[in-house]
């Protein structure tokens, strides 16, 4: 990958890079399709049910059927909606979700963009999706959607801050914003070299803030089904709704990959004698565990309340993440430099 990315931009290179982008899009869509299937299966098993098992063998084609249904469904736009913003919102939600994936490194060799400010790029772009949710909620001209959009704005702003600050500790330890360098900094053979143990406070804050960023249970307030019916996407149907859904699951992919890279050592093996296993497998294993964890808490937890969410974000997570930065700085000053 590196050769292509750093080589001169010829027509041939451009085509290759474009094709890789297209292949990657297909992989992500495939992930979303089966993440939804996997989620429904896992939650089903946790509730003494089978989960989807009617469409295709073991229900494997269930999501395909669902997507097909969404695509051939009538596309409705409420008469009093703001047409431009209403149609813009799903696109605006999806584009940043896909573009942030560019900076995730999967192995030493396999990555799509070697950005020296990779982490900053991720955080900056993912903030745009919030805008899309607010826009969608506003443009729908529906009160539930508006409430959902407003909640989402408040939630995203509150949790973006601790999310970013919680990874500052990781940045300090590895001395780089480049995600590949961050993974390299966690090498050393054993799993205790991964950031999640030295940065345990940052890790905890990151996980909580990340779940909140994903709008998933227990922080699924913008779409709180039992209160706001469906929240910001209540008026969306057909493929526009599918785009919102897609965004949500692409962010699951992104957050799971980011957590793996930042805290779980990316493609590093947990012990030196396991290094014969290819790095990509380790990456996928850790990645799958994070995804499973997200589904697991969805099956277990109730939803937190809006004011408690704000309280948790500003009064607990923010001070704790700041404290983490301070502790990490002291540690580096005393033990590494000193």
């Amino acid at each position, binding site marked *: 990958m590196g050769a292509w990315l750093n080589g001169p931009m010829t027509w041939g290179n451009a085509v290759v890079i474009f094709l890789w982008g297209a292949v990657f899009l297909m992989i992500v869509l495939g992930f979303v399709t089966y993440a939804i299937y996997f989620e429904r299966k896992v939650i089903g098993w946790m*509730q003494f049910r089978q989960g989807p098992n009617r469409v295709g063998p073991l229900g494997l084609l269930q999501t395909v059927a669902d997507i097909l249904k969404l695509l051939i469904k009538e596309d409705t736009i409420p008469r009093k909606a703001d047409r431009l913003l209403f149609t813009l919102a799903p696109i605006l939600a999806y584009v940043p979700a896909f573009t942030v994936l560019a900076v995730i490194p999967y192995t030493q060799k396999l990555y799509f963009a070697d950005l020296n400010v990779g982490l900053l790029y991720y955080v900056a772009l993912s903030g745009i999706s919030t805008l899309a949710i607010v826009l969608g909620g506003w443009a729908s001209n529906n009160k539930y959607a508006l409430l959902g959009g407003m909640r989402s704005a408040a939630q995203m702003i509150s949790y973006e801050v601790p999310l970013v600050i919680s990874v500052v500790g990781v940045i300090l330890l590895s001395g780089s914003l480049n995600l590949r360098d961050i993974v390299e900094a966690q090498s050393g053979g054993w799993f205790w070299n991964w950031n999640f143990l030295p940065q345990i406070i940052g890790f905890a804050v990151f996980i909580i803030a990340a779940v909140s960023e994903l709008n998933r249970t227990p922080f699924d307030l913008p779409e709180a089904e*039992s209160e706001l019916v469906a929240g910001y996407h209540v008026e969306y149907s057909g493929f526009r709704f599918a785009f919102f859904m897609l965004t949500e699951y692409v962010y699951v992919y992104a957050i799971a990959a980011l957590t793996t890279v930042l805290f779980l050592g990316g493609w590093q093996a947990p012990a030196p004698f396991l290094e014969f296993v290819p790095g990509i497998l380790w990456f996928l294993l850790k990645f799958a565990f994070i995804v499973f964890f997200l589904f697991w808490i969805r099956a277990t937890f109730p*939803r937190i*309340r809006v004011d408690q969410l704000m309280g948790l974000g500003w009064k607990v997570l923010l001070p704790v993440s700041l404290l983490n930065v301070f502790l990490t700085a002291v540690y580096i000053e005393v033990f590494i430099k000193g």
Partner: protein
Amino acid sequence: MIRTEELLLNVGPQHPSTHGVFRIVVKLDGEVITEATPVMGYLHRGTEKLAEQLNYTQIIPYTDRMDYVSAMTNNYVLVHAVETMMGLEVPERAEFLRLIVMELQRVASHLVWWGTYLLDIGAMSPFLYAFRDRETIINLFNELCGARLTYNYMRVGGVKWDAPPGWIDKVSEFIPYMEGKLREYDKLVSGNEIFLARIKGIGKYDAETAIDYGLSGANLRCTGVDWDLRKAEPYSLYSRFEFDVPLGQNGDCYDRYRIRLEEIRQSLRILKQAIVQFPSSGETMGKVPRAIRPPAGEVYTRIESPRGEIGCHIVSKGKAEPYRLKFRRPSFVNLQILPKLLIGETMTNLITILGGVDIVVGEVDC
């Protein structure tokens, strides 16, 4: 200066958390409710008016459909009223069967409440856990009277069916099973910090308010008022059994939650004793005149349904049909406190409070 205004939001009648076709019109200032007006009647079927053209046996299936989550207690309140009016004796075995099904029904009803309440709060699994165990009770009822929801089991003077062979044993197997499942529920939900933060201190009122509004059931007992008709005015055979009436102190949603779970335990306790004392043989139908014609007069009887005091007021002119029939439905009465509780709460708490009151819309609108 930014001009702000209140938002008028129509919650229901088509809303996932209004438990049927119930509607509340709320005025929101931001997310804070400044006014709430419940609108009911979307499920009104005129049961009381219909009853005036039906004879007493024919009314029984209609009572099934009032509080469809707890049809057995509804059956009982009607036949109990007619029996009181006519001074009928009910054979002991029939009375035992009635008591057993009513307590099973209380467990089933509280399970539905527990599951749907957690669903309102945002946890989806408890709903299916509760329904898995409710299914056991439903199967027991299905074996006993051939229906899973609208049982039409009791008759004036007795019950329609005797217990099939082995049924009582199945009930006694169910009791330890359910006790185990209650421990699982506690593990899954009752200690969950998010859940506790959601319901503690929400929807508070004191004993005086509760009595002023005529609340009953867990909605009354959560304020510490010791009023359970099974103890206060023992009907059926309740005076023969030992059980406690769980009480709260704070009058909030958490107390109501705790009381309902504890009531399941107490119901199991009653069932345990009832099975031991269950007469091994006997009639299930008392001596009832061919035509059921209560003497002219009025009667009001009340019992403790899972939702509170359900009452039946019959005015008879000595005919086969009641002159006037009135049900005091606990869901309807308990709901009256809602507009008061909702002022100053957020949208999220609306769902928590409404769920905590435990209404069944079929009974609210009757």
